[in-house]
C-alpha cells in the first residue's frame, strides 16, 4: 500500500470507505427498527400480563365482596384463609375496622381504595405484589394482590432476547461491513495501484479482473479499454513527434552546413550567394513541412466542415490533370485523365484540390520515369469515385496503411524529396469529407481510391 495513504491518528481506512459507511448506515437503520420493534413487544407483553393480573385480582375481590355480603366478616375471613393456601394462589388481606390484620399475608394497608405496590410475606419469603384495596361496609378493608415477579421475568426475557438479537445484528453488521469494505477496498486499491503504475510510466499495466462480471469488473473493463485507446493514441503521437524531430533535424543540420559554408568557405560573392540560396531553400522546405503539419492538424480538427459548399469535382479533377500533364510529360511520365462530367460533392474546394494534387504528385514522385499515372473520376452506387493509379512498383500490402501516417516513407523513397506528409493530408481531407480512402494493388502499381458522397442534388453542376 502506498505510504502516502497512511494517515496517522485517523480512523482506519477501511472504516472510511464508502462501502463501510453504507453498511454502517444500513446497520443503524436496522438497529433502530429492531429497538422500536423490541419496545413494542415489551410494551405489549407488559400490558397483557398486567391486564391478566388485574382481571384475576378483580374477580377474586368480587368473590370476597359476595362472601362478605352473605357470610359477614366471619365468612370472609374463612374464605380468605382458604383461598390463600397453595402455590400460585393470590395474596390477601382482610383488615378490621380497627386496622388490624384478620387474615392473609399482605401487611396492613390504609383505608384508601385503589392499586398499591406492596411487599407480601409468603412462607417467610418477601415477594413484591400488586394489590387492589377495597373498602367494604363497616370499615372492613379487603386487599387482593398478585405476585408481579412473573411479569417482571417475562419482561426481562423479552428484553434479553432483543438485547441478544440487536447485539448479534450489530456484531454481524460491523463485521460484515468491514469484510465487504475490505473486499471493496482491495479492488479499489487494485485500480489505484494500476493508475499509480501508469502515472509512474508503466503504460502496459491493466486493472486485474475478478471475472465475475459484476459492476466493478465492468468498470475495470471500461477503464482498461480506455487505457488501451489512450496508449494507442499516445504511441501515435510519440511516433509522430519522433518523426517530426527526425525529419526536421536533417534539413536543419543541412541549413547549418550551408550557413557554415557561407561563413568559412565562400571565396567569392557568388559562393556566398549560392550558400545563402541553399540555406533559404532549406528554410522554405522546413516552413513547408510546418505548414503541412499545421494544415493536417487543422483539417483533423474538422472546423472547416462548417464552410462546406457544393464543389464541382469534375472541374477540379480536370484542372488538376491539365495542370500537371505538361510537367509530367516533361519528366517522362504519362498522365492520363478520364473524368465523367457533372459530378459534384459537398466539401471544401481548396482542400479537395490539394488532396488531388497530393495524390498525383505522390504518384509522380514515387515511381520511375516512364510510369503511366491515371486519374479517373466516375460515379458508382450513388457516390463519386476518384481513382489515382500508377503502374509503378506499388506499395507492399503491409505498408499501405502506414504510408498514410505522418512522415512515414517507404525505404526506397527516403532519398526522394518530400515531407512524408502528403498522404497524411490526403487521409485527413478524406476523413473531413466523410470519404473512404482505400489503397489497393493496381497490378502492378498503387491504386488509391477515394469515395465521396455526392451532393444531394446529384448530377447538376454549379455554374462556372
Amino acid at each position, binding site marked *: 500500500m502506498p505510504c502516502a495513504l497512511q494517515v496517522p491518528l485517523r480512523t482506519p481506512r477501511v472504516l472510511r470507505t464508502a462501502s463501510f459507511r453504507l453498511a454502517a448506515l444500513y446497520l443503524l437503520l436496522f438497529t433502530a427498527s429492531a429497538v422500536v420493534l423490541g419496545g413494542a413487544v415489551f410494551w405489549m407483553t407488559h400490558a397483557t400480563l398486567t391486564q391478566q393480573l388485574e382481571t384475576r385480582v378483580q374477580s377474586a375481590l368480587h368473590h370476597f365482596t359476595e362472601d362478605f355480603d352473605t357470610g359477614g366478616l366471619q365468612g370472609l375471613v374463612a374464605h380468605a384463609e382458604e383461598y390463600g393456601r397453595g402455590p400460585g394462589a393470590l395474596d390477601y388481606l382482610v383488615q378490621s375496622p380497627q386496622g388490624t390484620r384478620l387474615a392473609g399475608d399482605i401487611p396492613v394497608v390504609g383505608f384508601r381504595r385503589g392499586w398499591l405496590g406492596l411487599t407480601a410475606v409468603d412462607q417467610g419469603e418477601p415477594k413484591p405484589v400488586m394489590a387492589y384495596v377495597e373498602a367494604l361496609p363497616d370499615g372492613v378493608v379487603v386487599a387482593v394482590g398478585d405476585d408481579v415477579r412473573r411479569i417482571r421475568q417475562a419482561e426481562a426475557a423479552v428484553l434479553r432476547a432483543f438485547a441478544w438479537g440487536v447485539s448479534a445484528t450489530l456484531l454481524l453488521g460491523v463485521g460484515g461491513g468491514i469484510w465487504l469494505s475490505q473486499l471493496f477496498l482491495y479492488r479499489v486499491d487494485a485500480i489505484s495501484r494500476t493508475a499509480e503504475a501508469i502515472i509512474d510510466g508503466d503504460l502496459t499495466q491493466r486493472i486485474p479482473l475478478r471475472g465475475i462480471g459484476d459492476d466493478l469488473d465492468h468498470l475495470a473493463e471500461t477503464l482498461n479499454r480506455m487505457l488501451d485507446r489512450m496508449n494507442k493514441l499516445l504511441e501515435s503521437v510519440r511516433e509522430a513527434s519522433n518523426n517530426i524531430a527526425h525529419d526536421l533535424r536533417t534539413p536543419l543540420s543541412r541549413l547549418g552546413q550551408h550557413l557554415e559554408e557561407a561563413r568559412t568557405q565562400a571565396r567569392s560573392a557568388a559562393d556566398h550567394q549560392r550558400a545563402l540560396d541553399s540555406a533559404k531553400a532549406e528554410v522554405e522546405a522546413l516552413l513547408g513541412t510546418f505548414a503541412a503539419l499545421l494544415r493536417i492538424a487543422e483539417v483533423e480538427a474538422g472546423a472547416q466542415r462548417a*464552410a462546406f459548399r457544393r464543389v464541382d469535382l469534375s472541374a477540379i479533377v480536370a484542372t488538376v490533370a*491539365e*495542370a500537371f500533364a*505538361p510537367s509530367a510529360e516533361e519528366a517522362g511520365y504519362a498522365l492520363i485523365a478520364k473524368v465523367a462530367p457533372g459530378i459534384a460533392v459537398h466539401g471544401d474546394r481548396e482542400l479537395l*484540390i490539394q488532396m488531388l*494534387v497530393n495524390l498525383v504528385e505522390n504518384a509522380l514522385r514515387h515511381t520511375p520515369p516512364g510510369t503511366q499515372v491515371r486519374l479517373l473520376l466516375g460515379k458508382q452506387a450513388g457516390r463519386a469515385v476518384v481513382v489515382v493509379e500508377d503502374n509503378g512498383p506499388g506499395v507492399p500490402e503491409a505498408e499501405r496503411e502506414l504510408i498514410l501516417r505522418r512522415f512515414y516513407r517507404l525505404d526506397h523513397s527516403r532519398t526522394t524529396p518530400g515531407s512524408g506528409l502528403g498522404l497524411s493530408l490526403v487521409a485527413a481531407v478524406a476523413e473531413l469529407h466523410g470519404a473512404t480512402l482505400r489503397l489497393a494493388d493496381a497490378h502492378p502499381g498503387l491504386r488509391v481510391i477515394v469515395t465521396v458522397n455526392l451532393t444531394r442534388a446529384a448530377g447538376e453542376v454549379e455554374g462556372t
Partner: protein
Amino acid sequence: MFAYASGSWGFGSVKSPACVPSGSGAGGGAATEDQVKVLMIEDDRETADYVSRGLREQGHVVDHTDNGRDGLFRAGDGGYDVLIVDRMLPGIEGLSLVRMLRDANVRTPVLLLTALGGVGDRVRGLDAGGDDYLAKPFAFAELLARINALARRPPLVDVETMLRAGDLEMDLLKRTVTRAGKEIELQPRECQLLEYLLRNAERVVTRTMLLEAVWDFHFDPKTNIVETHISRLRAKLAQSGGPELIHTVRGAGYALRAAGPVANA
C-alpha cells in the same frame, strides 16, 4: 483559329486581382514602378520593420501603426494606395477592421497577413472584403509583387477589350492572340496565364500569384507546373520571332515586359 472553351476562359468565380478588367495603363507600359503609399497595420514590430524597410528601399512610402483602432482611424482618412492588415491585432481584430472599412465605403485595396497553415483563412479574409491574402512567413518579393499588383488596380468601370505589350496583342472579345500580326494558337490555360501577365505587364508576378489566379491553387505544389506552362507559353510566343517577352525575375517570379524603353532593374 483557336476557339476558346467558354468555361475555361476568363477567371470565372476566382476572386483575385486578375478578375478585374484592367485600365488603360496596364498594357501601355508607361508607368512602371510608381511610388505606392502603404499603411501597414501590424503589431509585430519585427515584421513591420522588415516590410517597411524593404518597401522604402523600393521607393514606396510606408506608414505603420501597431493597433487596430489607430489603423482604422488612419485608413478611414484615405490617401493610401494599399493597406497591409495583420489578422491578429490588438484593439480591433484584422477581419473586423476590414469589414468596418468596407462598411464605411473605404475601397482602398487590402492585403491581409495571416499565420501559417490556416485552412479557410483566405476565404474568410476575402469574404470580409480583403483583396489579397498572404500567409506568414512570406518572402519579401512575394509581398512586394502583390502590393504592386494591388496598387495598380484600375477603376472597376473600365472595360478592356485589347491587351497589348510590344507587338503582342490579345483580343479579349474575339479571344485571339497575335504577335506582329500573326495569330498564335494557345491552350485555354495558356491564355489565362498570358492574360494575367498582360494585365500585370511591367510588373513582377510571383509563382504563387500565378497558381492562384490561373489554376486556383492556394497552396504550393511541389511540381514545377508554373515553370512548365511558362516555358510552353514562351515557346509559342517565340514562334514568330521577336524578343523575349516573359522574363524570369530571379528569386521573385516572372514579368512580361515589352521590349524597348522600359528596362527595369
